[in-house]
């Protein structure tokens, strides 16, 4: 089984990142960059599948500038067999990323594209579904459990009201939610060892242009400050006076 895992480089999701004063971008001075946590879960799952079935081959792929190599090295350290960087400084939106990944996937011909449901920077939750549509493949988004079979997979996915289980033929697109697994800790030797694994760079495979453009960023207006109450009685009095209970 072959699995392609798209990897996005994102600002550290635990850092407090603010927009630049002029709103043209984020102030990322001194901020670390990481693998999008949902993509890391996808990479972890692909490697666990390989650990159960050693005939599995996993390819991590990223799109962006040369700095994305750092996140691909981490993917290799988690256990990817090979990494590919589609190197570009072009403006990208979900539709361009989907188009590039579709071109890549058509060449590599995986059984599963396994990726995060969304990135923690844009929070868009679009690329997996767009890819599945363009490829004409089945999709399972918000996945919390992936069970590979022969020529098919069964995916448990979270829904608005609970869970459901979908069975689909491969090839397919699966996007991961938080609860699929807990990614392993990668110690420094693992990252150093991953330096000997293949990481190829190439140019874009399509001429797709963005359909959505970011024009401005602003900090969220703060809520007006609240206050502390001293007792349950004071809390209830306040809530009653506002007609809330």
């Amino acid at each position, binding site marked *: 089984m072959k699995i392609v895992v798209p990897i996005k480089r994102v600002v550290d999701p635990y850092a407090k990142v603010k927009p630049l004063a002029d709103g043209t971008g984020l102030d990322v001075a001194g901020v670390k960059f990481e693998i999008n946590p949902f993509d890391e879960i996808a990479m972890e799952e692909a490697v666990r599948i390989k650990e159960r079935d050693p005939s599995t081959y996993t390819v991590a792929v990223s799109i962006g500038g040369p700095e994305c190599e750092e996140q691909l090295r981490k993917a290799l350290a988690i256990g990817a067999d090979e990494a590919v960087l589609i190197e570009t400084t072009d403006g990208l939106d979900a539709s361009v990323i989907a188009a590039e990944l579709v071109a890549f996937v058509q060449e590599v011909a995986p059984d599963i594209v396994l990726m995060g449901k969304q990135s923690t920077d844009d929070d868009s939750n679009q690329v997996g579904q767009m890819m599945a549509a363009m490829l004409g493949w089945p999709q399972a988004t918000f996945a919390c459990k992936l069970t590979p079979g022969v020529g098919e997979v069964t995916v448990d996915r979270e829904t608005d009201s609970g869970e459901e289980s979908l069975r689909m033929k491969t090839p397919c697109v699966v996007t991961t939610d938080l609860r699929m697994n807990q990614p392993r800790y990668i110690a420094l030797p693992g990252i150093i060892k991953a330096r000997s694994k293949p990481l190829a760079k190439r140019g874009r495979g399509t001429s797709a242009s963005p359909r*959505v453009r970011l024009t401005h960023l602003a900090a969220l207006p703060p809520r007006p400050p609240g206050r502390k109450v001293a007792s349950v009685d004071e809390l209830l009095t306040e809530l009653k006076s506002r007609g809330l209970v």
Partner: protein
Amino acid sequence: MKLLCVAFSEAELPVCGGLAASLGAEFDVLLVHGSAGAGYGAAQVMTLGATEAPTADVLAPCVAAAAVGYSHVVAVSSMATKDLMARAAGLVGAAMVTDVVRFEAPNRFVRPILAGSVLATVETLVEPVFLTFRAAGIVPAEAGSAVAVAAAPPLGPELATRVATTVRGGSRPDLAQAKCVVTGGRPLQDAETFERVIGGLADRLGAAVGATRAAVDSGIAPNELQVGQTGKIVAPDLYIAAGVSGSTQHVAGIKDSKAIVAINKDPDAPIFETADLGLVADLFEAIPEIVAKLGPKE
């Protein structure tokens, strides 16, 4: 602007109508479940009459075919619409914008990014525009009179088979729609304690129950109760957070609530920066006291 609102159930129609009214736009509806008794201002409702919502692979070709002639195809943000709309946008070659919170122009939208800590303005460069929008802040439309009903375009072939469905929920209000929400965090210890303490207060208030990601991850509460940027976005009149630390991603999901009450024994918990009213107390003492002092439900 001519809108097509994709709705999974009739319950989403008032907000769809409210959005169209606020934009001064004509709109039609593509309704997946059930039938529309009223249109909430829609000119026409296309119905599928599905008893169970088809999977996104089956629905997306129908949405794509129905989208012809509309400038915008919109749906209330939910896991189901995120699953569907991006796939349909991929079929159509549309621009897609997720979780719109403000409509500034037909091609300009504001949406939260980075776990809701930053508001991004985006411009769409092609039509049609597919988007999901947050219901918070939209004044629901009145039911209006009976509406013209038409058949929806055909569904696509089934690529994925639903082999099992678990629907939880029971008798409490729907989390995303509720006027009052009581949320519990990791200190609730286990599922039984969570249900007794958080569920008890919620039932007294006629509220929905929510949970933090930490509570869900540790198995105290089921996943569909998760409130936050990666779970449900809520905007009730009253939001009560008990034993909730107040992570950025959690606050992102509650900040449009009219009043936020925090109960936490840690006076330095970040949730107190967001709360309108904060009570520094052990929730296991405070919540039973609140329930007792409210008295039996009328």
